[in-house]
């Protein structure tokens, strides 16, 4: 099978030197910015302000990391980002599993309409709702709480996750559920004991996408949570800039700290993430 679908489009590029050049371009493009910020974070202030600039750090130091944690409550930023991302991911998964099951398994009259609506919502610009969401969160006294971010983040990922799970659920044979129900499971029991475990890879992939979406979000976090103790990482990192000074090595250290959790997730689950992303992108 893999031979059949291996593309011939590039076979003229498969000579060894060309392959080397291609790999170099890809790796430099993908990794250089992150590596550069890692190098910067390991340099001393003196080395950083020396000209011509050095590429690799001459005397690597971890002092910037210490300072990143002591200058600002970086551990709190991490904790807030983590909790908001995890909680919104769980909520997204729960809500989208239920909705996707209904769409995949029940004989719905307006199924086509509902799917179109979900696709329309998946492209919704949440930025435009800054004012009304701000007002709603203010009215509900939710400004400066995790909830103010968890709810919008859930909605941000809900459409894509639901569409992904619908297609996963449709791949699970109906007989397995029916068998469970004959054995006395209720329909919901069958969903959570049979369908969800069988779709675990799909549910997991949807979860990673939701997590990364929430981890990355900046505008709403910036607008709704001004309390320093509740800032998420992207918002908190701005606090390192003084009025005139821009402590790049410390900022770099904080950035590295913020990149590492997602990088670990990506390294471990790369194949799954790619399949999830492309399933989401090719849908429609």
């Amino acid at each position, binding site marked *: 099978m893999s031979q059949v679908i291996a593309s011939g489009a590039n076979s003229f590029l498969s000579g060894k030197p060309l392959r080397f050049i291609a790999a170099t371009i890809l790796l430099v493009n993908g990794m250089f910015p992150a590596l550069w910020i890692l190098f910067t974070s390991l340099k001393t202030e003196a080395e950083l302000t020396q000209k011509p600039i050095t590429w690799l750090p001459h005397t690597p130091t971890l002092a910037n990391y210490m300072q990143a944690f002591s200058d600002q409550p970086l551990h709190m930023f991490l904790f807030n980002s983590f909790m908001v991302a995890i909680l919104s991911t769980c909520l997204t998964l729960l809500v989208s599993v239920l909705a996707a099951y209904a769409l995949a398994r029940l004989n719905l009259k307006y199924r086509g309409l509902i799917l179109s609506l979900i*696709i329309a919502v998946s492209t919704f610009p949440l930025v435009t709702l800054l004012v009304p969401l701000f*007002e709603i969160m203010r009215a509900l006294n939710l400004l400066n709480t995790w909830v103010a971010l968890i709810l919008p983040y859930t909605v941000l990922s809900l459409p894509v996750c639901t569409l992904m799970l619908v297609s996963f659920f449709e791949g699970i044979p109906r007989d397995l559920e029916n068998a469970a129900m004959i054995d006395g499971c209720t*329909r919901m029991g069958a969903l959570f004991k049979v369908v969800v475990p069988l779709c675990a890879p799909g549910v997991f992939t949807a979860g990673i996408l939701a997590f990364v979406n929430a981890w990355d979000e900046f505008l709403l976090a910036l607008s709704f949570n001004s309390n320093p103790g509740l800032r998420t990482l992207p918002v908190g990192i701005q606090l390192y800039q003084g009025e005139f000074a821009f402590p790049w090595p410390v900022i770099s250290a904080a*950035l590295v700290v913020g990149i590492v959790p997602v990088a670990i997730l990506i390294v471990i689950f790369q194949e799954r993430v790619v399949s999830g992303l492309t399933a989401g992108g090719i849908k429609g």
Partner: protein
Amino acid sequence: MTTSTLTKTDRTDRQPPAWTKMLDLSDRALAVLLLAPAAILLSLIIVYPVMRLIYTSFFSLSLTSGLPAEFVGIENYQLMIEDPVFWETTWNTVLITLITVPGALFVGLGLALLANIPFRRQWPVRLSLLIPWALPLSFAGLIFAWFFHSEYGVVNDVLSRFGIEGVIWFNSPNLAFAAICLTIVWKTSSFMALIILAGLQTIPRSLYEAADVDGAGRIRQFFEITLPLLKPAIVVALIFRTITALQTFDIPYMMTGGGPGTSTATLAMYIHQNTVSFLDLGYGSALAVVMFALSMCVTAVYLRIIRTKE
């Protein structure tokens, strides 16, 4: 899995056996129950706010003045038409979209063609496409602000090695704008590449072999086999990219803060400024309605393409 196959599934096989009704809720009750959480969330976070947004845009509502909301009709929109900053930020947003969406497509196509080469190890290639995608936009903005730093930035360092004198990127509106566009293209092209790569890998080799037999050259094969077969994947990716480009906020906010002046500020930044900094909710809403209308146009095109495909 495509939506066309989702909706075309035979309806009869979805009919549950009669005995489930005795054991369980009726289908309709269950459907309502299962869809309710999603519907409630979407109503609270999207439907109600959209109505509220349009409503508020007809009011003068400034939290700093302390005055109650006052109905002013289309005054906010009239103000907007006369507001040069509105036009400038809208133009910047459109320009960013027009530059970075095709930019990300071409760079992404290039990266995908390179990544499609059969390397012995696939994971470094995959990772190098995933890392830019997973990096938060705001982080990418900061990292590239450091890249383009006039004194210690790596961009000016590389330029000087080629004998080109470094420039102060963020002092000139055009250079700052170029730096922002480059950053956005870098950040978004790898997602484009992943989508295109997935499309490339579904093209059967036999098509190229047949073209070889017919004597078609590589370039002709690319334009007559590869591109047409990639079109569906590319169109969807382009539409998503266009809608996110219209919302551009994080990268210019982090790199220039909109400066110098307001020369690199986007519509989203102007909405944010009016809402959060000036607390002028009426005007902020009117601005958001414009952006909403812009992206709804793109979404309408998208839904239409999907429907014609079905």
